[in-house]
C-alpha cells in the first residue's frame, strides 16, 4: 500500500482518467527529446503519483517551453518550483510541478545538478519563478545564470550557509545587530 494505491477520495482516479494521456505524452516527449532526457519515470512502475521527466540541464528551458506551449501537453501553470538535496552526487535536484489548466493533468520535471553547478533561469517561461529561484539559492546555494536579482530572500543578507542542505544543523542560529537598510540601487 503506497502512493500507487487507488483511493477514490484522494487522487486515486488520476491513473484511470489521465493514464492514457500520460502514456501518449511520455512517448511523445521521449521521441522528441531523446538523449536530452536522463530518464522518465511513469507512475505504473515507480512509486510516484505523476510521471517524472528527468532532463539534463542544457535542455531544461527547451523542455519547459515545449511542455507549456505544445497543445498535446499544455502544462501552462507552474504549481511549484523547488529543489531537494540528495546527499549523493549529483547533489541537487530541481523539481518543477506543472499543472495543465484545461485538462487537470499534473506532471513533474526534475533536473539533477552537481554542487557548484549553475542552473539556467526559467524566468523567460514563467515570470513567477523569480522568487522561487531566489528561495532555492537561499536555502540550497544553487546559483542561476542570468537571474536579475539573485540574493537571499528568506534569511538575512549576511547569513552564512544554506539552511536546507542536509549538513546545516537545524539549530544553527545567527543573530545580527541591525536590519538591512533600504537599498536605493534596486530602485533605479
Amino acid at each position, binding site marked *: 500500500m503506497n502512493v500507487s494505491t487507488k483511493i477514490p477520495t484522494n487522487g486515486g482516479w488520476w491513473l484511470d482518467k489521465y493514464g492514457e494521456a500520460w502514456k501518449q505524452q511520455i512517448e511523445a516527449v521521449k521521441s522528441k527529446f531523446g538523449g536530452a532526457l536522463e530518464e522518465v519515470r511513469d507512475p505504473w512502475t515507480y512509486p510516484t*503519483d505523476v510521471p517524472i521527466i528527468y532532463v539534463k540541464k542544457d535542455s531544461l528551458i527547451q523542455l519547459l517551453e515545449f511542455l507549456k506551449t505544445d497543445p498535446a501537453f499544455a502544462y501552462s501553470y507552474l504549481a511549484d518550483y523547488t529543489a531537494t538535496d540528495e546527499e549523493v552526487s549529483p547533489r541537487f535536484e530541481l523539481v518543477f510541478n506543472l499543472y495543465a489548466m484545461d485538462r487537470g493533468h499534473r506532471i513533474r520535471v526534475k533536473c539533477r545538478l552537481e554542487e557548484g553547478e549553475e542552473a539556467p533561469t526559467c524566468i523567460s517561461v514563467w515570470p*513567477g519563478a*523569480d522568487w522561487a529561484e531566489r528561495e532555492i539559492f537561499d536555502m540550497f546555494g544553487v546559483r542561476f545564470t542570468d537571474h536579475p536579482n539573485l540574493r537571499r530572500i528568506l534569511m538575512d543578507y549576511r547569513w552564512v550557509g544554506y539552511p536546507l542542505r542536509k549538513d546545516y544543523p537545524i539549530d544553527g542560529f545567527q543573530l545580527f545587530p541591525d536590519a538591512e537598510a533600504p537599498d536605493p540601487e534596486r530602485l533605479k
Partner: protein
Amino acid sequence: MDDKYTGSAGYTGLGQGASPAARMPTGVPEGRYTVEHDPDDLWDDSRVIINLGPTHPAMHGSFRMVAKINGETIEKSYCEFGYTHRAKEKLGENRTYHQFVVFTDRLNYCSALINNVAYSMAVEKLMGIEVPERCTWIRMMACEISRIIDHLICVGIGAVDVGAFSYFLYGFHQREEAYTLIEQLCGARLTTSYTRIGGLMYDAPVGWEDNVRSWIKETRRVTDEMDRLLTTNKIFCQRTQNVGKFSKEQALAFSFSGPSARASGVDWDLRRDQPCMFYPQMDFDVAIGTHGDVHDRYLVRVEEMRQSLKILEQCCDRIQKGPIWTEDKRVRIPAKQEVYTSMEAMIHHFKFFMTGFDVPVGEAYTAFEGANGEMGFYIVSKGGPSAHRMRIRGPSFWHYQALTPMAEGGKIADMIATLGSINIIAGELDR
C-alpha cells in the same frame, strides 16, 4: 540654482500683502511651477525612498516594501519578507509525520484546519490509506468553516485598511462564534492540530451539526449585512475599483490561485476541477470575476463565503454516524481504552509516539484548495519515520511576488488596499 527660481530675472520679493501672483518670479507661466528632474538622481528632492517596514499599521504580518515615491505615487518598489521564517521545511525533515501536524496549523493560521486536512491527505496518499466516510465528512465541514472564517478576516482587514472599521468587528464576532464550533470539535480555537494521519483527533460531539446549522444561519445574515455595508458603498467602491488590477494572463504567469486568480477571470477551482473527498457530490458554484481589481477580489470572496455555506449545509444533511479512524494498523493510533487495558495496544501507542511510523518510499504532490489558493505539499519519502523533503507550497508566496507590478503607478494607499485584497498570510509566505 537656476535664475528662474532665485529671482534675479525680476523677482520683486514683496512681503505681506502682495498677491501670490505678484510674488512669483517673472518668466514662469502663471499658476504653474515646472521642474525638470533626473529620475535616476538619488539626491533628487522630489522622489523620496520610503520604507513600509516590517512593522506597519496594516495588520497583515511582517513584510516590507521599499518604494520610491513621487508625491504619493509609487514609481518603483521592491518587496522583502522572511520576518516570520520558522524553518518548517527543515523541521519536516527532523520530525516524524505525526509530529508535523502541529506545524501545519501555523501555515495559514487564519484557516488552520484546511492545512491540517491538506497535510493529512498528502501523507495518506503516500501511504495509500483510505479514511472512513464520517472522517471525510467532518474534514470537509472543518475545511469549509475554515474557509469562511478566513474570508471573513480577509475582508475585515481589507476594510480596516481602507478605513471601514466596523465591518471588522461584525466579521470578527462571527469568527468568535466559529471558534466555539471548532473548540467543540477539538478543544483549540486557532491552532487546532485536529487531523491525524488516517483519522481525526476526536469525533465531533453529539449535536455538533445542529450548532453548525445555527451558525450557518447567523453567518448568512452577517454576509448579507457585509454586502449592504460595503459592496455599493461609494467610498469603498472608489477606493477599490480599478485599483490593483491584474489581468488573467499576468495572474497565470505569476501562478496565482484561489480567489485572487478567480477575480482576474481564471476559471479554476480545485474543488471542482480536481476534486477529492466528497466534493464531486456537492452542488456549488464557483465565483469568477472580470476586472481583476480589489473590488472583484472582495466580491469573489463574499460569493465564496455563500457557496461554502451551501456546501456546509449539504454536509450537515449527509453526515452519518460511523468510525473516524482507518483500520490500517500502520497508522491507527489505538483507542485510549485499549491502551489502558491491553498490552499490545500500549506497545503500539508507545511506538507511534516515540519513533513514528514508516512511510514507504515514494513522492507525491498533493494540492488542495486552501482559502488563499492552491495549498500544496510535495513530500519525498525515502522510507523511515520522517520525510526526506517536505515542501510546502503556500499560495501567498506566489501572490506576494505580484505586489510590485500591481502597486507601481498607483498611490501608497492603493498599495495598502491591494495588499489587503490578495490576503498575504505571513505563515504561508515565509513558512
